[in-house]
């Protein structure tokens, strides 16, 4: 059974058709690369899965069950987490505080509840260890490398026991060494049985880490196939329209 299934999803903004009858499936523990030129509908698709937009037509299924979101929080309750391009971290707080932001564990009873810092540090240290990242819970995010910041953002999704992680251009603005770190993080998520949708412009990254590639062109899905049966040349052709479908 597929973890995430979109069936005939369309989205229009007034007269503009941003997505046209897109059907796609992602299996548990599968990494899907979502590619396409600017304006091809990648962001719209991600925002629909993340609960920011409601589809004009079509249905979303998670673990075979039809879901309907009204707000992003509904999507999060269904196990969908988004790692944003700008990472949405607070530079002035520690790694542990960022992992637990908005979900801080507390001790004592209202109104005298205090934050359980030891538990936060212990739990985030465990999550970083699972991700094999050298990030330390007490470090300020401001002093971290791009790869460590990604680890913090990704640890947040592990904390919530997400089923599906959407990553929007996680390797866009970081160094080569850090890209390798991030790709490792994605593999760790996959090994834990999470499904990952990776939006990226970087062909090498997609081919390095993804099991399946989906290509959008002008709002329509033109390909969804295993990476092993495709090639960067084919994908480039699909993105630009030199190849019609595959």
């Amino acid at each position, binding site marked *: 059974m597929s973890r995430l299934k979109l069936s005939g999803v369309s989205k229009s903004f007034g007269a503009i058709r941003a997505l046209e009858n897109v059907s796609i499936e992602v299996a548990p523990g599968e990494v899907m690369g979502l590619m396409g030129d600017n304006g091809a509908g990648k962001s719209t698709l991600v925002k629909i899965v993340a609960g920011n937009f409601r589809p004009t037509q079509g249905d979303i299924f998670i673990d075979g069950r039809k879901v309907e979101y009204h707000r992003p929080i509904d999507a999060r309750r269904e196990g969908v987490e988004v790692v944003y391009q700008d*990472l949405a971290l*607070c*530079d002035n707080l520690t790694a542990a505080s960022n992992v637990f*932001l*908005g979900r*801080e564990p507390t001790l004592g009873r209202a109104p005298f509840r205090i934050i359980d810092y030891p538990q936060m540090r212990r739990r985030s240290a465990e999550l970083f260890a699972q991700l094999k990242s050298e990030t330390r819970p007490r*470090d300020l995010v401001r002093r971290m490398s791009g790869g460590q910041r990604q680890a913090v953002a990704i640890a947040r999704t592990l904390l919530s026991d997400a089923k599906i992680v959407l990553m929007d251009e996680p390797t866009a603005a970081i160094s080569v060494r850090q890209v390798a770190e991030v790709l490792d993080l994605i593999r760790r998520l996959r090994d834990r049985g999470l499904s990952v949708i990776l939006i990226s412009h970087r062909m090498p990254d997609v081919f390095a880490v993804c099991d399946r590639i989906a290509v959008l062109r002008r709002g329509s899905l033109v390909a969804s196939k295993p990476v092993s049966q495709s090639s960067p040349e084919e994908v480039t052709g699909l993105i630009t329209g030199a190849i019609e479908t595959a």
Partner: protein
Amino acid sequence: MTSIEEVIGQSQHRGSLSRAMNFQAFWVLVAAILACLALTFLTDAFASERNLFNVSRNFAFVAIIAIGMTVVIASGGIDLSVGSTVVLTAMVISVLMSGGSGFWISALAALAAALLVGLLNGILIAYVGMPPFVVTLGMLSAARSLAMVLSNNKMIWEFGPDHDLLLWIGGGSTLGLPHPLYALLTLAIIAGLILRWTRWGQHVFAIGGNEQAATLTGIPVKRLKVSVYMFSAFTAGVTGILMAGWLGSVTTNLGQSMELAVIAAAVIGGANLAGGEGTVLGAVVGALLIEVIRNSLILLGISAFWQGMFIGSFIIIAVAFDRIRKLRSSD
């Protein structure tokens, strides 16, 4: 040769003294102590009991509001209306008390007026989305004007049946320490604990650090902002009541341009005007330094007209130091 890991490890786990030295409040405290020592030797008046009593009381007023201001600044905002909130609360309590009401009921009404100012500030900033600078600047004018309307711009110096109680609370002392100092101590401890140990405190720093991130994680940013401005107004309200009792008379120029001294105290104490940083201890120490310098100008016979120059320069210098530190750390 040490590996990079070890170096990082060392920089993380230095002793408490070197940690303290990295902390802006520590250096400000050193400066304040040095200034006190210098004044003790340079003037006869500084170390006199009378003068120290005055300094500690004046400093308490600025420090109490600086705590509220630090919270606002840490959340990424600014509150220019605190000086006017001081006069408004002082006027509400004095008008009510001179009209025959008791102290406690009048004090509650005055605090309610202050909280209302904060609520209005917060709603306009958080829900209507207006810049804090503009909203609180407008409130600076509006709240003082309201105080004038309330009192018909007359001085009030008779506070009805509880007259003596008000004067004792604001101007009296217990165990040799002026009462505003007790209020400051209580507030500082409570605020310090709340900022460090509650989710509210953590979220204040989160929205100051990256408001969008805070929103995305589901923190109730708007409600939190309203509460932040209400807290700042509350500290101004407490000060207004204490000042009414200290002065024994209330006029409509009370607390005029106090917001600048308060902002200076917070910023000198390490609050970052860009948001996300600030400590209660820093605010208190910053207020101490400002009051000691202000007092020294008077004792050294320098014209009071220079005070604004010093406070203004302090704000600019403190922000400049912050810039330099940022530039160095980004290298």
